[in-house]
């Protein structure tokens, strides 16, 4: 309620603002406080100088807060925002609800407002597929990521270990346990354990995929009690508890990044976007000894690395779709990537959206991890990431609205098993029950 009244106030304030300034249009943009977005905000003046009729107004929030604010805003039709930042999970769902404009349609309607030389066919096909609904693009990718294995080459050399070109999870386990030395504050591997569908469930689901598991069968019957899930989750839990970091249930992306950046962990499987931070001497102590490999595989060579893209979308409630399109295509264009590269250094450009980025010699020189990332981004396929057929789209998530709830509930039981309070069997049994209730409640599965 309080949220709603604050929103009302903001809307009121904005409409007063509009009434006073008829000539220039103010675009309100909601985005995540990730480093790449903060860089985007820092170029506000450059954009405003190029587009004198548009003023930018930023609302920058942490990921969870952004999701809550933007979803509430769009679902209630409050029209606070002219541009919102959405992930690959939200884009198709919101498109289906008619909450965001089709970028394809808008670009056809206002061709003059599309950034010159934008090049829709330069966007990575897998990313475009994940952001499309019924064949039309609904959000323009700002940066994309997959998941990969980071390791500390110094520790590997010391122990005489060699990282294969494509490691398997079994090899990773052996390396981790060989390098695990908790008494001296050195951990064999660090993996996410923090509850949340976007935290522990992301890497865990890729492990489940590559162990041959799936969230639901073709009829939406949850599969969490299957032997594949049991094997995958037991592997993940045992790996962390035996050769991984302590405090697993409070380790999210940020905590894991800290551990590896301080040289306390030998390996880490997580988002490719972390490569940029780990190569930055201001934030990392292992820039010289950082190694990269594709995400490990299990028995099934599929779905072992995820695909995600933070993207800019235009809510249907905006009164300035043409100007919003102008900004969206500017911020996701080649020109923007060049601007960031030339101003801030090439290793800081938003990665994982355009083929041309990976053909740019400046970027390849600054980012040694680029070829691995490109290979992963091109191989990830949200429509085909499990051994058995599934009724959903998504590598590390299930592309249905209810998954946020299901994934969060399941992750809590996984955390309970990680903490050793219940067995993996019990956790999966209870997780399966909540997943089943949720899909019945939502009408996918009838009892």
């Amino acid at each position: 309620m309080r949220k709603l009244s604050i929103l009302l106030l903001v809307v009121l304030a904005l409409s007063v603002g509009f009434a006073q300034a008829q000539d220039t249009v103010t675009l309100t943009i909601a985005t995540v406080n990730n480093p790449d977005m903060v860089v985007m905000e820092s170029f506000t003046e450059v954009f405003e100088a190029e587009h004198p009729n548009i003023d930018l107004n930023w609302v920058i929030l942490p990921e969870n807060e952004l999701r809550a604010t933007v979803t509430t805003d769009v679902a209630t039709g409050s029209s606070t925002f002219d541009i919102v930042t959405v992930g690959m999970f939200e884009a198709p769902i919101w498109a289906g609800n008619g909450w965001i404009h089709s970028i394809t349609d808008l670009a056809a309607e206002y061709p003059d407002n599309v950034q010159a030389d934008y090049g829709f066919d330069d966007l990575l096909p897998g990313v475009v597929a994940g952001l499309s609904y019924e064949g039309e693009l609904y959000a323009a990718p700002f940066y994309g990521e997959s998941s990969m294995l980071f390791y500390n080459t110094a520790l590997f050399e010391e122990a005489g270990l060699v990282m294969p070109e494509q490691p398997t999870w079994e090899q990773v386990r052996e390396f981790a346990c060989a390098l695990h030395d908790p008494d001296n504050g050195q951990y064999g591997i660090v993996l996410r354990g923090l509850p949340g569908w976007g935290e522990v469930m992301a890497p865990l689901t890729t492990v489940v995929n590559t162990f041959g598991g799936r969230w639901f069968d073709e009829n939406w019957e949850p599969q969490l009690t299957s032997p594949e899930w049991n094997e995958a989750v037991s592997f993940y839990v045992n790996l962390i508890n035996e050769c991984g970091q302590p405090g697993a249930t409070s380790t999210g992306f940020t905590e894991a990044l800290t551990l590896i950046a301080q040289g306390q962990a030998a390996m880490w499987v997580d988002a490719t976007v972390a490569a940029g931070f780990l190569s930055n001497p201001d934030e990392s102590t292992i820039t010289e000894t950082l190694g990269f490999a594709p995400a490990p595989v299990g028995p099934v060579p599929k779905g072992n690395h995820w695909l995600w893209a933070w993207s800019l979308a235009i809510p249907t409630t905006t009164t300035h779709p043409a100007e919003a399109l102008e900004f969206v295509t500017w911020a996701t264009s080649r020109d923007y990537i060049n601007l960031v590269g030339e101003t801030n250094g090439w290793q800081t450009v938003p990665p994982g959206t355009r083929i041309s980025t990976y053909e740019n010699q400046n970027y390849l020189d600054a980012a040694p991890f680029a070829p691995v990332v490109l290979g992963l981004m091109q191989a990830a396929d949200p429509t085909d990431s499990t051994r058995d057929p599934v009724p959903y789209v998504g590598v590390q998530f299930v592309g249905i609205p209810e998954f946020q709830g299901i994934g969060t509930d399941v992750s809590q039981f996984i955390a309970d098993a990680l903490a050793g309070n219940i067995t993996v069997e019990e956790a999966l049994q209870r997780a399966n029950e909540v997943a089943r209730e949720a899909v019945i409640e939502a009408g996918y599965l009838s009892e």
Partner: protein
Amino acid sequence: MAQAATLTAAPAPPARQANAFALRRFLPTPAILFMIVVTQVPLIFTLSYSLERWNFLRPERRGFIGLNNYVNIIQDTDFWTILFNTLYLTFSVVLITLVVGMGLALLLNREFFGRGLIRTLLITPFLLMPTVSAVLWKNVLFNPAFGLFAALFALLGLPRPDPLAQAPMLSVIIIVAWQWTPFMMLILLAGLQSLDHEQIEAAQIDGAGPLMLFYYIVLPHLRRYIELAVLMETLFVLSIFGEIFVTTSGGPGIQTTNLSFGIYQEAFQRWNIGSASALGVYAIILANIVMVFFVRVLRRGQKEGIATS
């Protein structure tokens, strides 16, 4: 107004006075109306949402479903765990802060060198924002890899503890109690300082020792202050959210999920506005039960006070 009529009928005062009385009655109306609009309208909205099946992300399935949300919640075993967690957390925190706060208040009531400084330091936890103190506890103290406790344990050759995973509820209780102890301490200290010295001297002359002094003089005097502090703290701690959000996210499992955090999860992770509203109504009922209970206790205390004096 009927009351006003009977009042005017009895002693038959002049008409002007009756008019003034009516005016006096009328004057607060705008304020009362304002209060109704800002407090009761949101409640009415919550009540009406709670009768709907409404998932934000599935607008096409929105519809009236009567009391189904309420029934589903009661039938869900997790709800009872969450309710138990809420009460367990609240009463543990209140009890701990009462004991520790009383001890600190008694100490601070004495004259000693640097009392002002110590008092300021002791109040500091209460002035920190809940999320800030939770982040401090989580990362600086509890973190099993680089936290202070882990370092101390490692120094002694013991395995590094991971309090937030091994004893999540106790960890949350400690954090919240650390934060609320100064509140209890301040109110009790104010009470102690209003205690008449002559009474204590008289009791000492009569041969009372420190324990008897505390039990027969200090405690009865502090009773009103204790009741007030406990009531207020209970109401605040019942709805604690930031500490849980930052440290455990209600887990592992639902071991540290209280009603506030449960409502947050229902509304902003499952996007179930209907059942989140129903949970909210249950939370209001719970807070009111606690409130009525304490107000009764307070009233009884007042009556006894009047009778004895």
